[in-house]
């Protein structure tokens, strides 16, 4: 990690989204990261030695004692505590050279870092806030500078200088650093400038200098410390490189690099001489980098390890051999899915059961967060980590999908069970052509010969209403509209003639006309192939139009299920009623207000003991707040999980 271009790369590789946080919170978070603490401790120790070098060092670092040259350190033969780490070729005490070297190296690096950061903060702020020609010139200058490794120029300039003082080194090392600060500060200032409160300050007459210093600066400067820490580590290595090459401070002033270079001349006799100063540099830079990582974590917790989406682990149970298949095609029984995180467990799905017959279309409807997508992802066993199925069964084709091997599950996916997702554009790989991805899917599930694969791809694209399949096959996802991409996804899903197709909000991201075309195409295709369809949506109007059966989900439970016609015509659960009332209907006279459902979904990590809908329910009773209702039969094949329809109550009402 040792040149100017990598220096520029580091802050970029780690987008800095500093968020202001209270100091106490910062401290608490820092306590949780062991590596950052190690870094801070190490850095403090090095700083202590550097600042108090004159007390730490047992001797004058320049004092030569030619009677005791190349004395080994105390642990080696011939070493003593008079010179704890031995002496160099001129009989100078190594401990003292290293301690004063720390002072010189750190002083130069810290000053250079300060110059670079202040220069960068000022220019970045000016470029971002004032914009215009100044911005253009500064950024162009920066581009040119970053296009060449300027350490080479630094080496040359310092190399040809007749005499080198600390000031020379500080300027040559510090000034080129401006650009890494300026770039980040500029982009943040640019964003901040447009924010409402800054614009508002302008409208009440705050001058541009005042707006820049009082409003923009306070929210921009926080990015500087993290970059500065990384920069400091880099500068220490750079300074020692220059000293090592003999282009650092004029001898005999010690710095870690020059102590190392001196030691190298005697390395065969005294190998510790070059090793020790290098270790000092390594420990210092490592401490600085660990501290910087800790700082970055504090400023931007999103970048913490393990926050990337991963596929969840599945239940650790032995593979279950398939049993003879029996109707129905799919039976989900008492499915429970949990997402444990930070000590609290979110119960996303809480005992969901439903069935699906061959060739049937089931609509699952509910608000965002009701658990409908999680249910769908459990069927294909592709939950995001850390979510996992904790109980229940998903019986499909004679086996329980929760309990079969990964290999067998992978064979089912895209084969007998296909799935399409909400956002068609991001469901296709951006760097492979449509043809590549379709052929890949077709080969995975059967056909091998190239000619027939290509033909099959064309044919399935034609089946979803794409007129010129051969052109589309050559194209990439970014060249197609959302509707076209979703057609491709459907075509790909249907290539293996699946028994079950799960469509998770397939048209939510599309406009209304495309939506209708796609859904009709989906209905025609599944009917023609005899494919069962699970259609997930938040739009109960679509369910009414396109499905045979419906399951209404609320807070991870199915609150009402039955034949679509029966549920739409006679909704029994107050939540279903509310959903239906919030749909615009042509048969209602204009001017009638649609009912929004008051309140919001309960926190899935703290679900109340009773019916989850009780807090929002217009017909709530006492029992609802303490007992979660079972699903009661309300009509043939039609059940509602609501106390209003409990047998005791219906009997009481009837009486």
């Amino acid at each position, binding site marked *: 990690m040792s040149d100017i271009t990598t220096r520029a790369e580091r802050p970029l590789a780690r987008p800095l989204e500093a968020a202001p946080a209270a100091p106490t919170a910062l401290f608490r978070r820092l306590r949780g990261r062991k590596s950052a603490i190690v870094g801070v401790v190490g850095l403090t120790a090095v700083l202590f030695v550097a600042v108090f070098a004159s007390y730490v060092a047992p001797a004058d670092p320049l004092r030569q004692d030619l009677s005791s040259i190349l004395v080994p350190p105390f642990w080696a033969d011939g070493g003593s505590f008079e010179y704890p780490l031995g002496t160099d070729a001129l009989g100078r005490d190594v401990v003292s050279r290293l301690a004063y070297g720390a002072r010189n190296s750190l002083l130069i690096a810290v000053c250079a870092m300060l110059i670079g950061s202040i220069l960068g903060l000022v220019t970045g702020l000016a470029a971002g806030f004032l914009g215009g020609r100044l911005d253009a010139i500064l950024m162009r200058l920066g581009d040119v500078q970053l296009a060449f490794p300027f350490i*080479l120029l630094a080496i*040359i300039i310092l190399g040809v200088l007749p005499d080198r003082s600390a000031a020379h080194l500080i300027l040559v090392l510090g000034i080129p650093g401006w650009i890494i600060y300026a770039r980040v500060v500029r982009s943040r200032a640019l964003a901040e400038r447009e924010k409402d409160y800054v614009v508002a300050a302008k409208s009440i007459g705050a001058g541009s200098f005042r707006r820049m210093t009082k409003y923009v600066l306070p929210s921009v400067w926080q990015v500087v410390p993290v970059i500065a820490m990384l920069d400091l580590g880099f500068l220490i290595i750079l300074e020692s490189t220059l000293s090592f090459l003999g282009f650092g401070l004029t001898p005999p002033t010690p710095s870690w690099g020059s102590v190392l270079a001196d030691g190298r001349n005697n390395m065969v006799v005294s190998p510790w001489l070059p090793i020790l100063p290098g270790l000092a540099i*390594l420990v210092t830079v490592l401490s600085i980098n660990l501290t910087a990582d800790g700082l970055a974590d504090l400023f931007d917790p999103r970048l913490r390890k*393990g926050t990337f989406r991963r596929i969840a682990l599945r239940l650790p149970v032995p593979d279950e051999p398939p049993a003879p298949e029996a109707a129905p095609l799919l039976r989900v029984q008492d499915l429970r899915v949990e997402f444990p995180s930070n000590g609290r467990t979110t119960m996303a799905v809480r005992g969901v059961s439903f069935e699906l017959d061959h060739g049937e279309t089931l609509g699952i409807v509910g608000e965002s967060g009701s658990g409908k997508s999680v249910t769908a992802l459990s069927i294909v066993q592709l939950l995001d980590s850390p979510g996992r199925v904790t109980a229940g069964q998903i019986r499909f084709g004679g086996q329980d999908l929760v309990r079969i091997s990964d290999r067998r599950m992978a064979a089912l996916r895209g084969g007998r069970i296909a799935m399409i997702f909400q956002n068609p554009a991001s469901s296709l790989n951006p760097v492979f052509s449509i043809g590549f991805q379709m052929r890949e899917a077709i080969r*995975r599930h059967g056909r091998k010969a190239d000619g027939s694969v290509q033909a099959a791809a064309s044919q399935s694209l034609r089946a979803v209403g794409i007129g010129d399949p051969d052109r589309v096959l050559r194209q990439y996802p970014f060249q197609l509209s959302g509707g076209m991409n979703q057609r491709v996804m459907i075509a790909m899903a249907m290539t293996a003639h699946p028994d079950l197709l799960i469509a998770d909000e397939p048209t939510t991201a599309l406009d209304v006309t495309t939506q209708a075309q796609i859904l009709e195409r989906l209905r025609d295709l599944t009917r023609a192939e005899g494919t069962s369809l699970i259609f997930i949506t938040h739009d109960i109007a679509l369910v009414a139009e396109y499905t045979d059966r419906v399951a209404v989900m609320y807070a991870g439970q199915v609150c009402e299920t039955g034949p679509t016609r029966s549920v739409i015509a006679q909704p029994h659960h107050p939540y279903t009623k509310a959903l239906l009332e919030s749909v615009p209907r042509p048969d209602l006279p204009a001017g009638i207000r649609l009912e929004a459902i008051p309140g919001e979904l309960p926190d899935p990590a703290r679900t109340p003991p009773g019916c989850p809908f009780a807090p929002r329910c217009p017909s709530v009773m006492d029992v609802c707040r303490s007992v979660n209702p079972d699903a009661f039969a309300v009509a043939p094949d039609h059940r509602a999980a609501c106390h209003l329809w409990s047998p005791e109550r219906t009997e009481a009402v009837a009486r």
Partner: protein
Amino acid sequence: MALVVFGVVTLVFLLLRLAAGDPARLMVQPGTPETAIQQVRERIGTDQPLFQQFMEYLTGLVRGDLGTSFHGQQPVLDEVLRALPNTLLLGVVTMAVASVLALVLGVAAAVRANSWVDRLVLAYVAVGLSTPYFWLAVVLVLVFSVQLNWFPAIDFTGPSSLVLPVATLVITLTPILIRTIRQSLLQTLGEDHIRAARARGLSERRVMFVHGLKEASLPLVTLIGLQAGFVLAGSYVVEFIFNWPGIGKLTLDAVTSRNFPMIQGGVLVAALTFVVVNFVVDLLYTLLDPRVRLAPT
């Protein structure tokens, strides 16, 4: 790109003449009479006004003439062309080894994120990022040349001479590459299209190594281009330590002897190399990413 090369050449030309003392005075014995020094100045051309020197230099460049060394009569171009293959050999071998190693370790760490493999790789990244490479070179020489006598410590005597210089550069170059590939692969694996690929039944291996890696390799390609700068800068130090007859050693020697034309030649070659590498990287990126290749311009 031409702008970068021109800027670097101009800057070096000016800085040398402003920062350094009188090169003629450094080339003669102390106590040489002023008239003799003046003769040296006239021979190497530093008696001319700065602007005229610069124009002569530029017109020379256009003709492909990089000037003549202050010491002796050999043309700079010959010297530079003799040194360049050695530096390229070092650089290309380093880049190839580092890319492969980084790919293997980065992917291993990402695929087994948070496992002991990942932790080990991340520990190497943290230490590697903090290691001064000139020190590493010294330690490698101490262990493998002085103690074990496996590889030669200096000079080019055969393929085994490449081992220690390349190892030094690779060990310090790979950490940033590993971190990038790991981060990028983890990010890609979290994307919707990866889940969709799994939902299509693709094997985990195909998802990782075809769908994940192609997209995840894009930032790596960019970074490798930028790291050409690291290898150039690193080769200065490594060539110095291992006495490797490349551009870096040529330039450093010229700096020590204030041989301005040779310094300018070395820097010009470095700038050109850097520009060419980044041009190739841009081409490669275009090949890998259809969004760049096919986007309407």
